[in-house]
């Protein structure tokens, strides 16, 4: 069996580990246009902030590829796929035959139409190369504007700030972290960033990047504010990199459509990670949920299925953990339910003194979402309640709301099945 994996993100790594569970011998080839083996992509903010060195980026040790008998083609790009002939052709003209193909090309940073965007001094922040370029730039510049107050934008802003750059953040939505967080949580994060010295501008968009002799002078906002800047980081999201798949005739919606086996429309073709539109644990139908654990899991399940172990992917669960200057935050599941839907019940508790915030979203008698700021120690337990979909009575709900989730609230047989299989014998 010949496996070909396009991309070397975490989905690709998951696929290798998934394939090798059942197939120890099949040839695995990974083609990546990046210069390094799979690395912890979110670590680029730690790298940019100077918290870690390049040596700590790799997600697996050096021996990993050899031990798993993987041929790694770095700095190589797949130009075309022939799903009928089951071959891929690289930019250099090399033809790579496959029996099973995984498209794990990830996402590409979205660049909005904006005057002055083209030219030097505009950066994205999703790859090792971006981080290196920004690190180099940060040494030279004094002021930066980050367009986009999502996870990537905020981490880029924080990292640049740590390098001594004055940073302003521009966010179109009424709050930062609009996807994962709500107004209150966003406000707490904004406040924290403000205290540290970062400027946050919400409810405005960047209208134009003003340049002088090609060099950036600043950013003009939709409300007329002008923010001086030497560089601009555009971080308003990523879009699935599906061009290759689309050209090959693979069915693409927002991402490459895959079923619970991560199989795409064409035989032998699979997709995983930020490029895939896969089943979701909490909602009907397939979604693109471009987050790290989903990418690994999709890759892992794709790998298993590619190797012939027909395993069903249980669906992705949106989750993000991120810290801003010591303020730890987590967000899991459905955290911003439609306001007018009576099936949902939202409870949130702000403890200004302790600097903590807890928001729980219930759908009927189940927990479907959870946001924690500050005190995140129970995050995993809440995730358990979301993932295992335990029905909750009023008392159990209250315990969760009070910040006291416990494994001892699990249904008896579920507890035993997971913690003590065959386990508890006859007792009192």
């Amino acid at each position, binding site marked *: 069996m010949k496996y070909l994996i396009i991309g070397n993100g975490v989905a690709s790594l*998951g696929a290798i*580990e998934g394939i*090798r*569970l059942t197939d120890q011998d099949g040839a695995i080839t990974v083609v990546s246009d990046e210069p390094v083996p799979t690395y*912890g*992509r*979110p*670590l680029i903010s*730690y790298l940019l902030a100077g*918290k*870690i060195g390049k040596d*700590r980026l*790799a*997600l*697996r*040790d050096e021996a990993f590829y050899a031990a798993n008998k993987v041929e790694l083609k770095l700095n190589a790009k797949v130009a075309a796929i022939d799903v009928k002939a089951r071959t891929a052709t690289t930019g250099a003209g090399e033809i790579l035959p496959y029996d099973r193909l995984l498209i794990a090309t990830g996402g590409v940073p979205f660049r909005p139409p904006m005057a002055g965007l083209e030219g030097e001094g505009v950066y994205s922040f999703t790859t090792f190369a971006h981080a290196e370029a920004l690190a180099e730039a940060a040494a030279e510049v004094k002021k930066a504007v980050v367009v986009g107050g999502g996870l990537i934008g905020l981490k880029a802003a924080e990292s640049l700030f740590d390098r001594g750059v004055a940073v302003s953040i521009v966010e179109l939505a009424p709050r930062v972290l609009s996807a994962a967080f709500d107004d209150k949580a966003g406000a707490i994060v904004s406040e924290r960033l403000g205290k540290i010295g970062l400027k946050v501008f919400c409810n405005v968009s960047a209208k134009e990047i003003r340049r002088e002799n090609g060099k950036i002078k600043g950013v003009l906002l939709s409300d007329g504010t002008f923010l001086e800047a030497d560089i601009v980081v555009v971080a308003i999201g990523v879009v699935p990199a599906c061009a290759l798949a689309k050209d090959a005739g693979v069915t693409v919606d927002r991402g490459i459509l895959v079923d619970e086996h991560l199989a795409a429309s064409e035989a032998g073709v699979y997709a995983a990670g930020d490029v895939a539109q896969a089943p979701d644990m909490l909602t009907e139908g397939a979604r693109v949920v471009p987050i*790290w*654990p989903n990418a*690994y*899991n999709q890759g*892992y399940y794709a790998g298993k299925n590619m190797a012939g172990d027909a395993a069903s992917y249980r669906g992705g669960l949106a*989750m993000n*953990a*991120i*810290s801003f200057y010591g303020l*730890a935050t*987590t967000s*899991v599941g459905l955290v911003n339910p439609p306001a007018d839907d009576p099936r949902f019940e939202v409870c949130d508790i702000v403890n200004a003194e302790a600097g903590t915030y807890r928001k729980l979203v219930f759908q009927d008698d189940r927990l479907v979402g959870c946001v924690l700021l500050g005190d*995140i*120690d*129970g*995050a*995993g*337990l809440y*995730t*358990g309640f979301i*993932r*295992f979909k335990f029905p909750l009575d009023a008392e159990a709900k209250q315990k969760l709301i009070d910040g006291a*989730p*416990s*494994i*001892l*609230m699990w249904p008896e047989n579920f*507890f035993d099945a*997971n*913690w*003590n*299989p*065959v*386990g*508890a*014998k006859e*007792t*009192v």
Partner: protein
Amino acid sequence: MKKVYPNKEVCIGCHLCEVACLTAHSKSRDVVIAYKQEKDALGLSPCKTVVHAGPACVALSCRHCEEPACVAACISGALTKNRETGRTEYDEGKCVGCWSCLMACPFGSIRRHPIKEKIVKCDLCAGRDIPACVEACPNWALVYEERGEK
């Protein structure tokens, strides 16, 4: 693989497993020094947690899952699954303290280090034949055995 299985029907909530865990992971390997010096100075803390609810209690730690959610969530490569030993391994040197694993683990088995930006997780007492918690349990509520799970 051999795993630690907690039996909540006979867990007596004494927390001796925590004492043993903390001591086994201390530098001094001495229970008194571990508690009186290392706990405060180094933030030494147990990987084991005894949870209580009325008369019920049980001592929990990493299950070393077949498909660990923490490994999938780990952005730094600090958490990996060793397919040979079956253990979910943790390399503190690589951890960046992003708390993704803590959030992803539906069993709540990962904790924050009290001082460092690192996590604390059961390593099944690497280097010991029987994990310290199992050895310390006075009521056989923790057993370390093979139950045919991967």
